[in-house]
């Protein structure tokens, strides 16, 4: 009897959720996503995450919690084992291979390991991201220096990644992620190699971009930053979402 009652409530709740979700303008929608690696390690466990257009979301969690894996799923860098991932109204789990570039052009990413082209200069690395989406050369020449000065690298434009400090590389990666004004900007630990002052500058920049309408998802370990910003915080632990607060802090408020 209780069992039956429970089931009705459950059904009803999921029904309500579906109605609500359909109504809202969710840019990113993960439903019951699981990720099991070939070695049997279950990295993501039943993830449900919905992010609206224009939100600023922190993704926190201890090292190895599954933050980067979650991001990789959204980029189709790796496939979800089960579940549904909808980005910008497209179900990417069913997406065909040749539409993947299209998906990635809508998402600017600061990778945790930067992923800069070693054979290209700072300028070329950023310009390259524009060339990929077939921007006109004039636009490239106009836009790239602006972005580089925003991240404080105007003077380093013709150095190669090898000749940059860790923090500078990270900022090139950020510049590249921003240059096409993507709908979604995903940043994996974008201040890990930056001193507090530079971090603050970068965060200002992100907030600014966010206010202009870009949805931002940022995985980070920087407690200060998360605590100060008072934005939505999604905490992952052991592959599960353990907390999702609208004006949260790095740690659970006690």
């Amino acid at each position, binding site marked *: 009897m209780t069992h039956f009652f429970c089931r009705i409530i459950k059904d009803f709740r999921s029904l309500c959720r579906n109605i609500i979700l359909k109504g809202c303008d969710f840019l990113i929608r993960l439903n019951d996503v699981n990720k099991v690696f070939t070695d049997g390690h279950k990295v993501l466990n039943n993830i449900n995450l919905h992010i609206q257009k224009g939100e600023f979301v922190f993704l926190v969690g201890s090292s190895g919690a599954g933050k980067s894996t979650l991001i990789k799923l959204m980029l189709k*860098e790796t496939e979800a084992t089960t579940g549904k991932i909808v980005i910008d109204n497209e179900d990417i789990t069913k997406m065909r291979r*040749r539409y993947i570039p299209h998906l990635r052009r809508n998402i600017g990413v600061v990778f945790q390991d930067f992923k800069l082209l070693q054979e290209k200069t700072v300028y070329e690395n950023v310009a390259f991201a524009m060339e990929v989406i077939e921007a006109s050369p004039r636009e490239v020449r106009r836009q790239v220096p602006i972005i580089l000065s925003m991240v404080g690298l105007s003077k380093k434009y013709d150095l190669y990644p090898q000749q940059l400090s860790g923090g500078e590389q990270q900022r090139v990666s950020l510049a590249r992620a921003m240059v096409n004004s993507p709908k979604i900007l995903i940043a994996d630990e974008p201040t890990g190699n930056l001193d507090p002052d530079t971090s603050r500058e970068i965060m200002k920049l992100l907030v600014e971009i966010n206010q202009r309408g870009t949805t931002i998802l940022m995985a980070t370990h920087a407690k200060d930053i998360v605590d100060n910003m008072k934005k939505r915080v999604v905490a992952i632990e052991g592959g599960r979402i353990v907390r999702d607060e609208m004006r949260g802090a790095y740690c659970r408020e006690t």
Partner: protein
Amino acid sequence: MSLASVTSITATLLVIGIFVMLALNFDYIATNIESQVEMKAFLVDGLGQDVIESMKKNVESLDGVKTVTFESKTQALEKFKEKFNNNSYLLEGLDDRNPLPDSLIVTMISPNNAKEISESISKMSDVENVVYGKEVLDKLLKITYALRVGCLLLIAVLLIISTFIIANTIKLTVFARRREISIMKFVGATDWFVRWPFIIEGVVIGIIGSIITVLALSSVYMYFVKTLSGSMLGIMSFTIMPFSEIVIDTTFFVTCIGIFIGFLGSVISVRKFLKV
């Protein structure tokens, strides 16, 4: 890294080019030798000038006949004497009772037709006998055929081997840039955006390799022709292919192969690393 690819492709094309040249020359020489095969139609004694002329015309009109020359008894004896000047004691007393007949000397377009031609001529009136060294010719044809097939096989094998080598070289070049390719894909580049530069590079490398190869081979060949025409040619009963002729064939062949290999190598090699 392109340097490695260019030298590899050049090296490979050089090997193929050398072989193509050898094969072309071989074919040229074989054709040459084959075309030197003559057929002799011995005529009955004492034919008039006009009869001989009309016979000549008849023979000339046969399929596959190249030239027809008349050789009189006397000419034949002169030749015979020249040939056997070592054993001159054999010829004593031949002058007054010349046993050699008049003959028509027939050359053919291809020795493959020898049998039919000889049969046709035999059937003509006033022809005593047709001689053309059947066994020798058969042997020659068999040998040249075997060698031609061998040459083609060898070139085919070389082509396969070269494609392997080049594909490997390009694969390694691409492998060394696999990170670059994956990053491009992460930033949203389409497969073709990534592929084009590699393909262009491959084709350009192929063209550069071809040019170097053709230059190297033709200058060496020119040198060969020069030195050989002085010393060796007199000794052998054949000439090697003239420069102007071989250079066109070789250039065409080598350039096609170079471009093809460069293109294919790139396409195949990049494919594997696009799956990101």
